[in-house]
């Protein structure tokens, strides 16, 4: 919970967190090392100096650190795990759904543990999806379309198997599809500007919500375009929001642009923990005001009510969370007491 100077309570759902293991012991090859190195560069590049982690901590941190950074220090009331496996890069996977589930069990009401699928897993993966829905009550999945799998360097949501998986999601009530739109999806020559698969999937599956993590960066432009067309497409702020520290003016332009094209009801906060800690992101976001010239140009307004939506209300709506009931539930749990 974030409290404003006037004592107003802002309920915070961190829409994008992970408990990963990128340590050298878990790396399968050079790509595993490069993957976590690249993450660490993001972390170093955009974090305030006082929030920099040492490399070994960044590679592998424990559950207590996560709980502390999110719920005790970081104003977060609830957090959504967005796991990726990266089995071509890591021996035991980068993320681990079972570990996430253990943590969710230990801290009831604090976590939403999302699943994941990869259409290249065929029938076996459909069964796994069913297992996730039945055993873990999964309501959302994180898709990493750029994940390598042998000679394949990614997949598209328009692939026939991806369509089958999305149908399965609909049947199982897994309604929130978080898609990481990052570089490299084969074929390579179409890569880097093609977001048509999100567009197509969003039209074909109006019952599902497509949350585009990182707002399509570095393809913000294309993302805004499709999100304007499709009412079930959302912007996940992970990776975009830390620019609030190093490039506040650009962040102002980005958030104004999102408010202009996508609208205040379809933007979700995500820290992308442990890439960045929610504490400083939320403090800076709450204190942030749009420069007047940008406000004039776009007509966008970042009021307290808009911030409230972005920080929690929009995610709550997607995941069917009753904020007042949830507040009551977690007010005196073991994490709240630690704070």
């Amino acid at each position, binding site marked *: 919970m974030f409290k404003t100077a006037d004592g107003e309570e802002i309920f915070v759902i961190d829409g994008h967190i992970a408990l990963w293991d990128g340590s050298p012991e878990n790396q399968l090859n050079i790509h595993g090392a490069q993957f976590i190195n*690249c993450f660490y560069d993001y972390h170093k590049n955009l974090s305030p100096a006082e929030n920099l982690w040492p490399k070994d901590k960044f590679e592998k941190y424990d559950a207590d650190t996560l709980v502390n950074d999110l719920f005790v220090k970081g104003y977060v009331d609830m957090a959504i795990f967005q796991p990726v496996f990266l089995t071509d890069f890591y021996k035991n996977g980068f993320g681990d759904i079972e570990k996430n589930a253990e943590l969710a069990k230990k801290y009831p009401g604090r976590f939403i543990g999302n699943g994941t699928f990869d259409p290249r897993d065929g029938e076996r993966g459909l069964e796994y999806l069913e297992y996730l829905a039945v055993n873990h009550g999964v309501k959302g999945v994180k898709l990493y379309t750029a994940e390598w799998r042998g000679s394949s360097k990614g997949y598209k949501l328009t692939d026939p198997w991806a369509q089958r998986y999305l149908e399965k999601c609909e049947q199982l009530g897994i309604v929130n599809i978080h898609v990481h739109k990052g570089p490299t999806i084969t074929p390579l*020559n*179409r890569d880097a500007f093609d977001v048509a698969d999100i567009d197509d999937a969003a039209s074909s599956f109006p019952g599902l919500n497509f949350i585009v993590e990182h707002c399509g960066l570095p393809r*913000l432009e294309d993302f*805004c375009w499709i999100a304007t067309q499709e009412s079930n497409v959302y912007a996940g702020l992970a990776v975009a929001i830390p620019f609030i520290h190093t490039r506040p003016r650009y962040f102002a332009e980005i958030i104004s642009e999102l408010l202009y094209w996508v609208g205040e009801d379809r933007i979700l906060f995500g820290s992308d923990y442990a890439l960045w800690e929610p504490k400083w992101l939320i403090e800076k976001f709450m204190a942030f005001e749009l420069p007047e010239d940008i406000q004039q140009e776009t007509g966008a307004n970042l009021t307290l009510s808009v911030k409230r939506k972005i920080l929690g209300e929009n995610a709550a709506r997607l995941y069917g969370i009753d904020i007042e009931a949830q507040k009551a539930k977690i007010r005196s749990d073991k994490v709240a007491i630690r704070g």
Partner: protein
Amino acid sequence: MQQREEVFAKLAEVYDPELDQSLTELGFINQVAINGSDVTVSFRLPTYWCSPNFAFIMAEDIRDRISELPWVKKVAVCLEDHCASAEINEGVSNGKTFVETFPDMSSGQLDELRKTFRVKAFVSRQERLLRHLIRLGFTHSSILDLTIRDLLELPNLESEGIMLTKQYLSIRQALGYDNEPKKIAFIQSDGKKLDLESFPGYLANIRRTRLSMEFNGHYCRGLFETRYSMEPLSELEVCK
């Protein structure tokens, strides 16, 4: 020494298509080695995962621009620390096309991609110039009436305006529109005319493109600086 300068002048003409900035300006060129008529250029990018197609375009442009120098017989390009380094270096240095380099992972050449990003560069340079003019107090209708000559003769453009005009006109030409003095200065990327009524909507659309491109510039530069500032320069030997 003169050869080196000539090589760098050519490298300054190679642009990162996604950022619309030159490789020398971005600091992506790591090393240039000249051995008689053989030139080896090594370059590096902000991340290990930067899109292979853009990396290929840059590598190919390095090769082609430097090959234009009359004294150059052989150009080797060495992309360092990248997930597709081996394929790209082998392909570009041996004169292969993109499809020949990635036979299983491509469904065509990169011409379309180049075109797409040339249009984005046009749009974003135009937007910056338009913004500047609007900030100086020009009305929408006076802007739409400007010919190339008017634009070049505008007083009080300030140094920023002069630079933006130059950049805009150069990409306008690269896109195939001649910069004859009587021509209307501001047109859409497909050559269509702009009209007053739809101009505000047009401005909002092109702002999105400019912002996206500029933002990528910040994003990539930041990552590039973080990635390399702490590490010693890697040697050319690495790619041999």
